[in-house]
């Protein structure tokens, strides 16, 4: 807790604490270690009592078979899985996660800027209006939101019916999954806090020099706030990558993301208890985020600290 203790010879009590730490850490890590080890066993290798860890051989066969059975990767990677040509779980996940991220970065920056910079009638009301999204999470509203997506039309976009009317079929597209996340109360709040901590003198100097609002935003407000924006981006990508329930509701085949692919994969009856195959599929899904986390540990943990705001 205080620095004077650092790297000193440990007392027996401290050794005990260290021992407990190691024990708990190993216990907590067992699931992922087991999953990694078993994923390198051959696909038809049955596990049994006293035979749940290493097999006789270390092979990539399970990964090969998993990618053949389900379209995890795009065709050009070399996997020839059945599925919808041109669609793969990886591409689908990347598509909707990046779509949500790009739109969110724009909406969140603008909204945070407005709440931090301008004074206008109804500011407090609109702020609480947006914050409602934190109190009623989108996951809970899946029933009415499903109807909104299914019945999406130009009228939903606010175009009066007597001018133009056309139904927009969003079901089973990346747009259907990403759209409820386009506005983000958490991001708005985070960016507002970041913009509020920009020195007022700097902003006033900019106004004196005749900066337009976009100059102020891009040159005065944003540069010192990039860490917050990056933190928001990391949280957004990790949360969306792991999202299951909402994609399950609004996609069927073409836009099915990785998480849903894994769910279907484990439920295939003929795969049943072929644990090495299932674990290979699991590793295919968790690998990108897990590796990114191992390399950028500090950034991820600091970003997730922000995520508690929600």
């Amino acid at each position, binding site marked *: 807790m205080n620095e004077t203790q650092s790297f000193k010879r440990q007392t027996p009590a401290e050794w005990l604490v260290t021992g407990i730490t190691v024990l708990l850490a190993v216990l907590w*890590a067992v699931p992922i270690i087991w999953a990694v080890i078993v994923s390198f066993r051959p696909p038809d290798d049955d596990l049994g009592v*006293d035979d749940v860890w290493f097999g006789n051989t270390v092979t990539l066969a399970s990964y090969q078979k998993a990618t053949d059975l389900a379209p995890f990767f795009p065709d050009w990677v070399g996997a020839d899985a059945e599925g919808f040509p041109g669609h793969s779980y990886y591409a689908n996940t990347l598509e909707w996660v990046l779509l949500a991220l790009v739109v969110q970065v724009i909406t969140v920056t603008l909204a945070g800027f407005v709440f931090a910079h301008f004074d206008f009638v109804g500011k407090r009301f609109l702020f609480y209006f*947006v914050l409602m*999204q934190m109190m009623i999470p989108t996951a809970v509203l899946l029933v009415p939101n499903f109807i909104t997506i299914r019945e999406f039309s130009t009228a939903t976009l606010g175009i009066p019916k007597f001018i133009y009317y056309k139904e927009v079929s969003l079901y089973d597209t990346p747009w259907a999954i990403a759209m409820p996340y386009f506005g983000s109360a958490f991001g708005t709040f985070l960016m507002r806090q970041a913009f509020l901590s920009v020195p007022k003198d700097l902003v006033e100097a900019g106004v004196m020099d005749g900066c337009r609002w976009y100059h102020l935003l891009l040159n005065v407000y944003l540069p010192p706030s990039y860490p917050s924006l990056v933190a928001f981006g990391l949280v957004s990508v990790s949360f969306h990558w792991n999202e*299951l329930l909402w994609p399950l509701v609004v996609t069927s085949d073409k836009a099915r993301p990785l998480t849903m692919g894994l769910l279907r994969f484990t439920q295939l009856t003929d795969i049943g208890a072929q644990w090495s195959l299932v674990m290979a599929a699991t590793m295919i899904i968790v690998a990108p985020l897990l590796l990114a986390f191992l390399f950028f540990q500090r950034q991820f943990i600091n970003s997730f600290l922000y995520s508690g705001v929600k």
Partner: protein
Amino acid sequence: MMTANTFDLHTYWTRHLRPRLKPLPYLLLLPTVYFVYLFTIMPTFKVLRDSQTYYHPNRPAREIMSDLSLPGIEEAKRSIRGPHDVGFAYFRAMFDPDTVEGERFFRAMRNTIIYVVTTVPISMLLAFTFAVLVNRRLRWIGSARIAFFYPTMLPMVSAATIWLFFFTPEYGLWNAALRWFGYHGAENWVINPDLALVGLIIVAIWKNAGYFMIFYLAGLQNLPEDVYEAAALDGASWWVQMFRITLPLLRRTTLFVSVVAIISAFQTIDHALVMTYELVTGEADLLLYEIYNQRFILQNYGFANALTVVMIAILLGLTIINFLISERENE
């Protein structure tokens, strides 16, 4: 010139109101407000209306796995075209344990309450323990931190899939470990109706403890050091320091983490989709799972909406309680 005690509407308009009504801020705010309206505010009112409406299911009647037989609904069901206004029939059924719906609602509520009151305190206690253990300057402590936090980065589906193996009878590692401690009870933690909920709770605790740990860790690192130095001079033991200084100083962190934990406990059911979906009798159904099930599997649209209303009421209630507590803290 305006005197202090006359109110001149024209001056008020030109000096105060008009500059604050310029369109630019509203325009920049439009995208966020639009999407929040479309996917949060509007649906909240929509479920209020739809929870009092009977819609005909989308499939032929023989395919529907369960069907309603409620006093207010019978007539609407026999009709050819819908939708029909059925008033509060769904809510009446929900709070009447004699109906199928009432029974399912009570069970889902009971399960959800058990789930929340076990996962939240246990994972918070573990989180605090982890934070204390990890908050030391040792060479390899970083890897312990990774070991505790990495479950946060896994999708709940993957975590549940791995645990599905751990819960396998005979050779699953969880059962092997329990047997080592002398447990010889039922082993299939996923199919067994009495154990399935416990299985969900275990996975949730394992997954969330590391996430909550980082908040306690940040809290511990911001504690004032001079207090501890003073306490050490007074001869206060480690336990006294922990319970008299650390925990009271971290009260705000605890409140904050508990709010995050409770709200996320209500909205996470991904592990249930992996682990207990085979349990069609629904002994381990949580509230959100019941909503999903009623809407998309059983096609009881109105009832799913009524359940959503209950869920929203619970979440808003929790928000208000949280607000009141933190207001009192601030005084």
